């Protein structure tokens, strides 16, 4: 950075001057006329030989500090670090301790430079984590490849994507096959292979050779833009700890100033060592500067948010991260969150005749768009359905006829009405009974099954003392079966979508103040609940805009274990923030006490600057741990 180089040069020049001044002062007869505390010997030309190199060095090192201090003073912004430094060093100058005034200023600037470097580096590494913005788009226009910005791509245009390039807008793959790295979108580290006709999300990186895609969205509606908007505006909601710092400064600064005044004025009444006590008071002011806190707390939150987004967990701001860390009540939506959200055939009974049963079911259900029917079709062998006349019987099932042949597929009620003898099956899912020409063949059970790691995730949350509750609109019977299978503490069934938010609100009121309540849903129809809960988590990528708007956390990967990962990152971040607050304040208080007691008087101001800058550096380094 240009600015950092300039700063460094200034410090080097100031330090060289400082060295010259020190040599003149220590090794020449100047010393005799310029002892500290001698007073301003303005009549003697040798005094200027002593003072001028120091003053020049001081001005070169600290002119911007003085400028900022004056400007802030004029705009009514008292007591920032610049002002404190100026007061402290001017005090030393007034006491004619020029080496100290000058040395401390240089030391302070070195510290500032380090600090700025560290902050800049941390900031850039967090920004790099979030950098998923595609820079260019190659489109085929009238047969020629043109490079444009992603914003200029129109829907339906053909995109060319070389190896290593980012997909600029959401698109459909035209080439036969392509391999994409979606890790910056979903946190999923395995590359994803897509075939022709499949949707490819913008922001993924092409790992294979050149592929062609057809743009299916404008840039502003593409996934990558939605994620960027979310992440870039994430800092809007400040965390409680961040607000704590602001509130804290409001009381802290006046207290410190009053304490400094007391140190400067009270003890000298008894000892009449005015110079010494004023110096202690000035040192006290330098130590008191709260920059370590002011810098490290927001940085820790940024780091946490950045680290989470790398894992495909998008957190909207420090406040959401903090509430996620506190969460001890986890409410899960059932369909699509705990379960796969689509039906699968879980049983064909009797299994020896599975082929025949499924084939018959397919003939009757093959044309239907009902989710259960579609599921059966997925599992069934492709038999010829030509010539069958299919009729639906509402609430019961389907009848298919072709000449003499008649196939009945439906629930128990249908079979009872048709007076077919059959064996009733007990199941949490939906059971379809299949009858051909009046003869009962068997049954197909279709259910929405829990995700493979649902049980594990719930157990892990319970192991950490969290309460887990499943909310669903399903019937009691089906809800109980899933609840038992995944092991949630509690479940609530037959809850209409519009009643869920009210239920969550009541639940939050009943459980009282401590901790927070986290609701996890798939973002379909549950925007009100996402908004109601302390932490609304929507799962499975950037779905509807309403869900993104309402939720505090968006899990890009359709994987329940992300919630555990997210909670871990959130807890780690808040722990680091607390560590920083405690360590920074602890060191300050310690140095303040030592200074006030005069234990450190020989090198007090140096120590003061170190306590300020050194602790800030430590806090920044600690804050960067949130990234890992």
């Amino acid at each position, binding site marked *: 950075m240009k*600015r950092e180089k300039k700063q460094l040069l200034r410090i080097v020049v100031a330090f060289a001057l400082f060295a010259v001044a020190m040599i003149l002062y220590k090794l020449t007869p100047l010393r005799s006329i310029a002892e500290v505390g001698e007073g301003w010997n303005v009549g003697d030309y040798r005094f200027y030989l002593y003072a001028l190199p120091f003053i020049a060095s001081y001005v070169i090192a600290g002119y911007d500090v003085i400028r900022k201090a004056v400007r802030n003073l004029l705009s009514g912004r008292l007591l920032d670090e610049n002002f404190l430094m100026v007061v402290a060093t001017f005090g030393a100058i007034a006491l004619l301790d020029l080496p100290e005034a000058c040395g401390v200023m240089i030391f302070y600037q070195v510290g500032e430079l380090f600090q700025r470097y560290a902050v800049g580096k941390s900031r850039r590494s*967090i920004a790099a984590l*979030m950098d998923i913005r595609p820079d260019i788009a190659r489109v085929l226009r009238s047969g020629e490849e043109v490079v444009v910005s992603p914003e200029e791509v129109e829907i339906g245009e053909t995109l060319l994507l070389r190896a290593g390039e980012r997909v600029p807008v959401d698109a459909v793959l035209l080439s036969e096959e392509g391999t994409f790295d979606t890790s910056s979108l979903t946190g999923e580290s395995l590359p994803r292979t897509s075939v022709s006709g499949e949707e490819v999300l913008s922001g993924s990186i092409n790992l294979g050779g050149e592929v062609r895609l057809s743009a299916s969205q404008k840039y502003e509606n593409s996934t990558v833009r939605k994620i960027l908007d979310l992440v*870039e505006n994430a*800092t809007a909601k400040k965390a409680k700890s*961040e607000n704590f710092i602001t509130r804290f400064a409001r009381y802290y600064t006046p207290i410190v100033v009053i304490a400094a005044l007391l140190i400067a004025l009270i003890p000298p009444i008894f000892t009449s060592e005015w110079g010494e006590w004023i110096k202690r008071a000035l040192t006290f002011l330098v130590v008191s500067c709260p920059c370590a806190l*002011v810098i490290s707390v*927001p940085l820790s939150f940024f780091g946490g948010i950045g680290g989470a987004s790398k894992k495909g967990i998008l957190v909207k701001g420090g406040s959401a991260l903090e509430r996620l860390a506190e969460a001890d009540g986890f409410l899960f939506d059932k369909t699509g969150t705990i379960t796969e959200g689509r039906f699968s055939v879980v049983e064909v009974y009797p299994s020896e005749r599975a082929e025949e049963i499924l084939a018959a079911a397919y003939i009757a259900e093959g044309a239907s768009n009902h989710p259960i029917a579609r599921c059966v079709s997925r599992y069934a062998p492709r038999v010829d359905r030509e010539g069958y006349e299919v009729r639906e019987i509402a609430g019961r099932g389907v009848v298919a006829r072709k000449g003499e042949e008649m196939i009945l597929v439906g629930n128990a009620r249908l079979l009872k009405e048709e007076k077919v003898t059959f064996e009733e099956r007990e199941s949490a899912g939906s059971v379809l009974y299949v009858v051909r020409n009046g003869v009962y063949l068997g049954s197909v059970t279709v259910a929405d099954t829990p995700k493979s790691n649902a049980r594990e995730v719930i157990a892990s949350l319970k192991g950490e003392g969290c309460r887990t509750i499943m909310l669903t609109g399903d019937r009691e019977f089906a809800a109980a079966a899933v609840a038992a299978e995944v092991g949630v503490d509690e479940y609530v069934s037959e809850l209409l979508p519009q009643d869920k938010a009210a239920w969550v609100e009541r639940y939050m009121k009943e459980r009282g103040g401590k901790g927070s309540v986290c609701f996890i849903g798939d973002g379909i129809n549950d925007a009100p609940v996402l908004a109601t809960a302390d932490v609304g988590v929507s799962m499975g990528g950037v779905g509807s805009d309403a869900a993104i708007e309402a939720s505090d956390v968006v899990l890009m990967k359709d994987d329940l274990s992300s919630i555990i990962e997210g909670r871990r990152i959130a807890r780690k971040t808040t722990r680091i923030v607390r560590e920083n607050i405690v360590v920074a304040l602890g060191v300050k208080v310690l140095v303040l006490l030592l200074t006030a007691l005069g234990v450190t008087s020989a090198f007090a101001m140096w120590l003061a600057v170190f306590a300020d800058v050194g602790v800030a550096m430590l806090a920044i380094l600690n804050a960067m741990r949130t990234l890992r």
Partner: protein
Amino acid sequence: MKKVYEMTDLCCASCAAEIEGDVRKIEGIALCNVNFIMQKMTLEIAEGADEAKVIKALCKAVRRVEPDCDLVEVKG
């Protein structure tokens, strides 16, 4: 009207927060969000406000906190 600015040489998070607070107080600014990590400011200028005047006040507010900080408008 929405505007996005890149902020060069914005060196500390607390300055960013301070700028954000100050800019929000400017008349004619409906919304302001400063993102220190991205070094970016997102603004919403209120309907019917004098744009030139608002932007002048904005630059002044930014300069006051961070004299070396420049605002570069990002299009699109």
